[in-house]
Each structure stands twice: as structure tokens, then as C-alpha cells.
């Protein structure tokens, strides 16, 4: 019974999507860390991708609403900073969804330490590796802006972090 409640709560929370990248759920992103249920009291633990990510307030609100719809009221939502989120927490299916959505998924760790490292992102539209970085900072805190030299299309790439 307890395990069942936890499962229902988890499934409700796991459907919440990132308001800025609506194809990704917070479970895909690795933002959802834990869901516990004690005596009907749900506690959800989340972690921000970036400290100033403005999506976190909306995500917390949507978690609460998803739980209410699933019959859980008065949920507690806890934000933790440690361990620090990294792009490696993005799930394999999350990476596929990003690519299908037109955003290049991040490289697996490594390289970002190099001050002038040549980070490369393959074009999510035509698949070409011949791309160039246009701007380190893109439309949200977690993305940068690239252009494909083959198909000439600009595209967003998830920052390696």
C-alpha cells in the first residue's frame, strides 16, 4: 500500500515537463531527485540545473498541481544543491527527445575545462558535424547558440555542464 502510494506520487510528478523545453520531463532532465510518502505526506526533492534557473518556481508549482490531481494535497517540495546537477544526469531518452526537438544534446562530460576548448555540437537538423558556435549563451541559461555550416541553419545546443 505504501509502496503503491509512492509509485502513484512518483508517476504524477514524473509527468511534469520543463516549461522552457516542454518535450522533456523533469525525470528526463535529472531535476527530479526523489519522491517519498510518509503517512500520506508527499515530499519531492528537486535540484536546479543552474542556480538562477527561473523555471524552478514554475516546476515546483506544477509538481504541486500534478500531485493534487493525483489525490495528494499539501506536498512538500525541497530544493537541494548537492550533489550539483550535471548534464550527465540527462537520461538517454531525454537526449533523444532533445535531438528530435531540434536541440543538440550535450557532450558527455569532459572538455569544458579547456578555457578555449572547441566544444562541438552535431547539427540536430541534418546531422552534420561541421558546425560553429555563434554565442556561448542562448535562449535560456542551459543552452548556447550554434550554426550548421552544411545546412546553414542556426540551432540551440544544450550546454555541457
Amino acid at each position, binding site marked *: 500500500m505504501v509502496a503503491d502510494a509512492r509509485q502513484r506520487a512518483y508517476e504524477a510528478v514524473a509527468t511534469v515537463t520543463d516549461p522552457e523545453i516542454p518535450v522533456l520531463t523533469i525525470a528526463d532532465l535529472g531535476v527530479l531527485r526523489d519522491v517519498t510518502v510518509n503517512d500520506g505526506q508527499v515530499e519531492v526533492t528537486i535540484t536546479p540545473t543552474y542556480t*538562477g*534557473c527561473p523555471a524552478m518556481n514554475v516546476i515546483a508549482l506544477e509538481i504541486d498541481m500534478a500531485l493534487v490531481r493525483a489525490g495528494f494535497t499539501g506536498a512538500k517540495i525541497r530544493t537541494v544543491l*548537492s550533489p*550539483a546537477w550535471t548534464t550527465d544526469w540527462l537520461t538517454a531518452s531525454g537526449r533523444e527527445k532533445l535531438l528530435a526537438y531540434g536541440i543538440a544534446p550535450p557532450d558527455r562530460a569532459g572538455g569544458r575545462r579547456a578555457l578555449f576548448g572547441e566544444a562541438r555540437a552535431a547539427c540536430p537538423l541534418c546531422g552534420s558535424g561541421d558546425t560553429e558556435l555563434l554565442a*556561448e*549563451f542562448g535562449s535560456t541559461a542551459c543552452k548556447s547558440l550554434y550554426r550548421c555550416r552544411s545546412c546553414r541553419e542556426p540551432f540551440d545546443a544544450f550546454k555541457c*555542464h
Partner: protein
Amino acid sequence: MSVTTTSIAVDETPLVLHLLRRADDALILGHRLSEWTGNAPTLEEDLALANIALDLIGQSRALFDYAGSLCGLDEDQLAYRRDARQYRNLLITEQLNGDFACTIARQFLYSAFIDPYWREAMSSSDATIAAIAAKAEKETAYHLRHASEWLIRLGDGTGESHRRAQAGLEELWPFTGEFFEVDAPDQSLIDAGTIPDPAELHDGWSSRINTILARATLTRPKDSWMQTGGRTGRHSEHLGHILAELQYLQRSHPGAKW
């Protein structure tokens, strides 16, 4: 008629004081950078400076939140209800943006200090500081790369961009001494392994500066008189103007929420 105030008093233990110093640095610099929104030279830089501002304000919130938990206040009270003399930020963070080259010079000088600071603070004996540092360090590494690349482009660009970048460096250099100041409260935290010793970061900072300036064909300004005072609440005239804008709503309607 009685005189009322919307200001709050803060019990500044050494740890609270240090957290406020770092939080105020991030908040005030974030606020300054946000002034570029809609005004930056290109759309990409508009986004970049707004993103960096957002990171810094996010860092300040985490620091205010922790400081507040130690002194019985919340992040909004700490940001909105302290007077200029209670602000503990580095003077460099409150200086006017100037032109784009001057803003980039400030970002470079500050990021080259704060990025290794957070990296060291990841091994703090205080678990919350270590957690905040691990988040902040990933972000400041990006900020440092952004500022370094721009400084090289400006310094090694046209005669005019070179002149402006050099002028920005000369203007801001006297504010860099404050990065490395240590007073008695900070020393007690250094001794306890709670925060890094900035003196140990000086050589790394200096060599980073030299490497990037050489690539930018810019000249390192001479060390002379260094400004001081931000850490004890003695600020330049600019901070009051920032706070007037930043705090207006909470001063007019204390505790307002929406």
C-alpha cells in the same frame, strides 16, 4: 510623530558576514549586468549578459538563503531591507557599466578571481558552502571564458576597441586590491577551513590576468593606490542609486508579495 524605518538589523557573526559579502557581490554585479538588457551591442551579447546576471542573482539567493537561516531572516529581507552602509559588496561590482569594453574588463577581473575562489570553496568544512560553491563554480567558469574571449577580441581588435578595453582596465584596476583583503572575521573562517584564503589565490589570478592580457595585446595596469571600504559598508556614491531602484517596492510596501 514617531519615526519608523523599514530597515532591518542583522546579527553579523563571522559566517553571516562572509556569506553577505559574497551574496552582495553577486547581487550587485548581477543587477549592474541586468542594466544591459535591451542595450547590449548585439542580440547575442544582450542574451549573454542577461544570462550571466541571472546566474549571479541565483548564486546570491542561495547565499542569502543560507545567511538568513543563520540569523533568522529571509532572502528578501536581506536583499531589500538593508541600507547601503549594511551592504558588504566589493566596490568593483557597483561601479558604473561604462561602455561594453569597461563592462567586459570588470567581468574579466572579477571572474578571474571568483571562479578559482568557488573551486577552492568546494572543499569547505561547511557542507552548505561546499554545495553552493559546486553550483557556482560551473557557472563562473563559463563567465570567465566569455569575458576572456571578449577581452582578447576587443584588445586585439581595432584601434578604438583596444583603446576602450585598456581604458576600462585602467579605470577598474584600483578596485582589484579588495579581492584579496582579509580581516579578523574572515581570518577566523579561513583558520577553520570554512572559506578559502584569498591570499593563496593571488598568484593564480595574476598569471591568468597576464596570459589573457598578453593575448589581447593589452598592458597590465601598474599597481598603486587600491580602493577599499566595500567590505565594511563604505561605498562609492553608486550603490545608493542601485539600491533605490532595487529596493523601492519593498521599502514602499514592506513584505509585499505577488
